[in-house]
């Protein structure tokens, strides 16, 4: 399992937290997209993608984040990223994607910000 999705039934905000365990790359990025689309279909709108357990992300991983972010925005929802280590944060900065995403240091910080 590369992605684990948690959604706390007692959370009044109804945030869907997806944790990326391992790599977010060309071979598994579509799984992430499906998880988000399923949750959107189920009426969810607040998403946290947690990279605390992530090794690396390739350009197609970054690409899927761009496209799910767009889907979420179109559905009137909100996406936050959290738990990026120094290397991962560098990828967002190099590609200027840090300007496109809401990036929090920790998952908790992101949850509080919704």
């Amino acid at each position, binding site marked *: 399992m590369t992605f684990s999705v948690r959604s706390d039934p007692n959370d009044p905000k109804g945030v869907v937290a997806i944790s990326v365990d391992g790599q977010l790359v060309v071979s598994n990025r579509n799984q992430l997209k499906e998880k988000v689309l399923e949750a959107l279909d189920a009426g969810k709108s607040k998403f946290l993608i947690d990279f605390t357990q992530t090794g690396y992300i*390739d350009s197609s991983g970054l690409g899927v984040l761009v496209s799910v972010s767009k889907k979420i925005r179109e559905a009137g929802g909100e996406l936050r990223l959290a738990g990026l280590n120094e290397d991962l944060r560098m990828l967002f900065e190099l590609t200027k994607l840090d300007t496109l995403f809401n990036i929090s240091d920790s998952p908790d910080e992101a949850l509080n910000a919704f």
Partner: protein
Amino acid sequence: MTAAIPPEGSVRIAVRVPSELDVVEEAVDLVARHCLACGLAPDAVRFNLRVALSEALANAIVYGNGSDPQKRVDVRVVVDDEVVEVQVDDEGEGFDPSSVPDPTLPARVDLPSGRGLFLIRQLVDKVSFNDRGNSICMTLRRA
């Protein structure tokens, strides 16, 4: 990088990879382990080399070989005291890397693709292609 044996004191690794995206991660892991076996610093191997090689492999498989299972991708690595050179060859027609637009331009930054070569250039110290454009060589300085 075409001689079968590298200069003294350096190590050469060659791996042939099938044209399937599913094997990219495994191939990257394998090459990374060999780089560690050569004594490369775990940090540089862990991230920059892995991401750059993932990009080059994915491009070789998808654009170069059109995901044709009959076609192969060859990875050649030479590690010496100063640098790691990673060359990825596909069987495709090649392309003109100078024609690839900058993905950080305001008009492109929210596109879902087009960041592969850009990332490679940012993450390694030197990138070169053969004339045809079906062979990319990425150089990382050690230390």
